[in-house]
């Protein structure tokens, strides 16, 4: 007994309590639903058995049905565009801005703070706002692009199958830019100044300093940003119903929205669960990237 007590105050017990309570909580609120979805993807589900676990077993029927949907490959392609497009956009612009705001000029940190506003905006509001900005005939984006002479006619962001997935991606880049910029700024601030000064003395130019100092020193931050970016991009849902509803003809439909459509528009809960299980693979990759990136962390 005393051993346990002293372990709680002074040893591993402390760590186990700290981590254990939280993990139990997370497991109950995220792990159980996850298992529930896995089980459901192998069953036949309707409104009469939604409340129980004992349902007719369906084997891989749901998976076969999902893969043989005519829009399946389109959805995969769109998910890839959305995820990689969003991450690339958020990361590149976010990195550029983060470096820009590291330069010293008046009000640098105040103005950088303004960029964070998008982060705290409710997703629903952002979706409504961008749906409105991207509208074809009365959308303000087209008016601006026409005014600048970039386009001639009207770009139907939401209705042109070649543009629709990009329309949502643009909105998502806007939304996620702040998060990327902030985390990358944190990483940049952690790099000791004297490293740059030494490199400058050695005659390294800006690009060389970036590739030999900034990037290696930022490895763990970059890993975290990319992994979290991937996960949060796959979670991004609010923008789709508000901007394109996955249309036209599924040309902007992505896995997370498709899963929702199956469950809540077509009321086929098993197929919705099946699609969400397929997303697991994406997150698996992201989690591995993140955990690997933490290996390069240096504790302060």
């Amino acid at each position, binding site marked *: 007994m005393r051993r346990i007590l002293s372990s709680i105050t002074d040893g591993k017990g402390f760590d186990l309590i700290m981590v254990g309570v939280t993990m139990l909580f997370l497991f109950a609120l995220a792990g159980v639903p996850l298992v529930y979805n896995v089980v459901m993807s192998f069953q036949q589900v309707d409104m009469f058995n939604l409340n129980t676990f004992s349902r007719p077993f369906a084997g891989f029927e749901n998976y076969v049905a999902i893969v043989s949907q005519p829009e399946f490959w389109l959805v995969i392609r769109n998910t890839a565009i959305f995820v990689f497009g969003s991450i690339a956009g958020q990361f590149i612009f976010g990195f550029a801005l983060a470096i820009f705001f590291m330069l010293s000029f008046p009000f640098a940190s105040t103005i950088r703070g303004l960029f964070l506003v998008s982060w705290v905006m409710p997703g629903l509001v952002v979706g*409504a706002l961008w749906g409105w900005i991207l509208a074809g005939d009365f959308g303000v984006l087209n008016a601006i692009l026409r005014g600048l002479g970039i386009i001639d006619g009207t770009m139907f962001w939401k209705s042109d199958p070649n543009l629709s997935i990009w329309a949502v991606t643009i909105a998502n880049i806007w939304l996620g830019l702040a998060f990327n910029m902030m985390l990358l700024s944190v990483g940049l601030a952690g790099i000791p100044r004297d490293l740059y000064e030494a490199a400058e003395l050695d005659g390294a130019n800006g690009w060389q300093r970036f590739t030999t100092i900034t990037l290696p020193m930022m490895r763990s931050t970059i890993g975290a940003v990319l992994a979290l970016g991937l996960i949060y991009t796959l979670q991004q849902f609010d923008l789709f119903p508000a901007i394109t509803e996955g249309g036209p003809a599924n040309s902007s439909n992505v896995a997370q929205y498709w899963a929702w459509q199956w469950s809540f528009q077509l009321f086929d809960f098993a197929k919705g669960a099946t699609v969400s299980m397929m997303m697991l693979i994406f997150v698996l990759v992201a989690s591995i990237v993140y955990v690997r990136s933490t290996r390069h962390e240096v504790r302060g």
Partner: protein
Amino acid sequence: MTRVAAPKLLLVLALALAAVYLFPLYWMYATSLKGASEIFANPPTFWPREPDFSIFPATWERRTMDTFLWNSLVIATGVTTLTVLLGTGCAYVLARYRNPWIDIGLFAILMLQVLPASVMITPLYVGFNQIGLLDYPRTAVIIAAAGKSIPFYIVLVRATFMSVPSELEEAALVDGNSRWGAFFFIVLPLARNGILVLAILTFMQAFGEYIYSKSIITTQSLQPASVGLSGFLGPNSTDWNGIMAYAAMYVTPIILVFVILQRRIVSGLTSGALK
């Protein structure tokens, strides 16, 4: 380029970038002040022809926004409290060691994030129903939303703890502090800036919580402002200036708090705990 002119040029460039980035916000305010036909004008008007400010009190009144915003406040406070209580210690432990168990822990936390809230809600609803939590809908939403925000909080607060030098803690332990003492009196104070900032960000995110609230809270007087906003988006009635007026009143307080606190938030996030 001379060294003297450069900062000013950079300032101008920064302001220009901020203006482009914040344009959507301006558009929200501008749209809310336009008349019902003006919003569908082609090309759009950049400045409302006859700004009509009465839309704000009218929308506030008609939508009972005081109740909605109060509920958002309650939910956001609850989520933040729960997140900080459960997340901080966990993040600390995960930052302190470097072994395969930690890898597994981090991996598990991220994997538990796989499902979007829109897919999680069905199992959560079924589970909450079975333990009777649905009778306390706001509490249920707080618990569910905390489950979503904790992993995010852990990952970021963990980074803050990484910047607390381990020597300080070891010194405290050598001085006879228990692990609890070292954690509460040495490490936490050093990491407080980062924790505070992430608590604020968690709060602001929870202020916009939507998916869980809309399914779990069935009584209108307990619903948060996000659910109230979705009430606008009916089948055949999309009242854009009303939506934008509501959105403006909804986000303006968050933005104001943010602008007031932003110096603190930004420095808390960028300079880590010690600077």
